[in-house]
């Protein structure tokens, strides 16, 4: 009898111990959750203060190849707007010239990212079949390889679909530069962090167009929402034959090209 009582006492003790242990273990997690939701509130509050809620938007860009005149104003504006180093190998956006000859030979060049214009000299005697300009920019992939490879979470796809870099958090390991199939990233020579097109994030949160779209003299670039039927971009997608770069990679770019030639890579 005595033994039994002692046994039940022991059982009660264990149960209460487990309870206390569970409370002790879960408390910090619960506090963490509370704190997190508090911070989430502050983040959301900031977004509301600016009148900009990322989850309400989905940005994309349309580029009409048949309108581009290769003047390079977009590349100049981008460098001015975003303090991109002036050296001729750092670009957030640039323009390439494609020259396709009758024998199927393809020449692609982009001297100083098109900022100094394109020389009109012939390098071969071959007959040219067709020629055009292709503006290039970060494709803001829906399935971005650069975000996948970032070891610290310094580059990310925001809720509005824009792929951004957290330059305070980037360690400059250059994995993302290697991973980008479009060559849209570079390492900033002074900060030693990865840099790329942000769709001029500081402008679009204030309802302004990205600098390259603002200055394009022929409206070859169109910027707008992808999920609002009234946006100029959706109209652009509806009225043109659309192509994307490297569709086989399944990166699902949000930069759409109209009248894109099959030779463009």
């Amino acid at each position: 009898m005595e033994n039994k009582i002692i046994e039940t006492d022991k059982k009660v003790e264990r149960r209460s111990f487990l309870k206390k242990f569970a409370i002790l273990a879960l408390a910090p997690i619960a506090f963490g959750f509370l704190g997190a939701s508090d911070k989430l509130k502050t983040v959301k509050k900031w977004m509301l203060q600016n009148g900009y809620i990322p989850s309400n938007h989905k940005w994309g860009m349309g580029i009409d190849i048949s309108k581009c005149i290769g003047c390079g104003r977009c590349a100049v504006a981008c460098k001015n707007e975003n303090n991109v180093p002036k050296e001729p190998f750092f670009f957030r956006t640039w323009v390439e010239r494609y020259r396709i000859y009758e024998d199927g030979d393809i020449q692609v060049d982009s001297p100083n990212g098109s900022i100094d214009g394109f020389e009109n000299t012939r390098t071969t005697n071959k007959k040219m079949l067709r020629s055009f300009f292709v503006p290039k920019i970060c494709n803001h992939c829906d399935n971005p390889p650069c975000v996948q490879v970032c070891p610290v979470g310094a580059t990310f796809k925001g809720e509005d679909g824009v792929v951004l870099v957290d330059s305070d958090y980037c360690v400059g390991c250059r994995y993302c530069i290697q991973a980008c199939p479009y060559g849209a990233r570079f390492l900033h020579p002074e900060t030693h962090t990865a840099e790329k097109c942000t769709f001029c994030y500081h402008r679009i949160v204030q309802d302004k167009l990205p600098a390259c779209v603002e200055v394009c003299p022929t409206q070859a670039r169109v910027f707008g929402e992808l999920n609002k039927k009234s946006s100029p971009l959706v109209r652009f997608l509806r009225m043109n034959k659309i192509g994307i770069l490297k569709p086989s990679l399944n990166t699902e770019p949000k930069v759409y090209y109209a009248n894109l030639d099959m030779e463009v890579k």
Partner: protein
Amino acid sequence: MKNFLQKIPEQVKRLSVLLLVVVIVFIVATSLLTPKDFGLVGHYRAGAIQNNADKKMQYAGQEVCADCHDDIWKTKNSGYHKNLSCEVCHGPSFNHVNEPDQFKPEKPRDRIFCPVCHEFNPSRPTGFPQILSASHNPRRICVTCHNPHNPTPPQTPKECSACHAEISSAKSVSSHMDIPCTKCHEASEKHKLRPREYLPTKPANREFCGQCHSQDAKGDEFIPRISMATHEPRYVCWQCHYPHLPEAL
């Protein structure tokens, strides 16, 4: 319980203690080193969105320009350049909007700027207005003939150059480019119909050139001057100087 603990080999005990230490150090380190806003909205620092949004604008956008320069804005929007933003040519002007007197936007006036878009290039789309700047009035600044805010091509009289193209293209690269044909030649309307019967007039004497090139002639300082009395008085000017391209000697 004691039995069970005794049964565990010594090395396993030590290793598990070590493992526990490693796990605790890892948890403490991650909680200390991870920024507080990391992972709030996704696998990234939520504050990074704000960092990206906080950058300073350089291009104000053309709607802002219209607030003050509404006359130019209207001119531009009625012409061929209606789709151009002001800052394509005038450069980033956000500072000018805030402090209009302190920061003045650029005014590109040289012949290098307009050909950025309008120089002939076979890669440009057909129909886009293009010129060959080497032969298109090569010594003139674009804005003397074309108003950049309303760039309709000026309707210059092509009457002379229609037939005398060689002379007019030679003149266009000379320092006489701004002198109209009619300053030296008087051609009647009949010359257009029967050119060989009704010839235009030509200057007849040295004094005609002396109107600009003699020592006491009125006019700009950059015009070269000669002494009419000592500068080869036995010849007329055009025996040595070709008036349509006086540099060619």
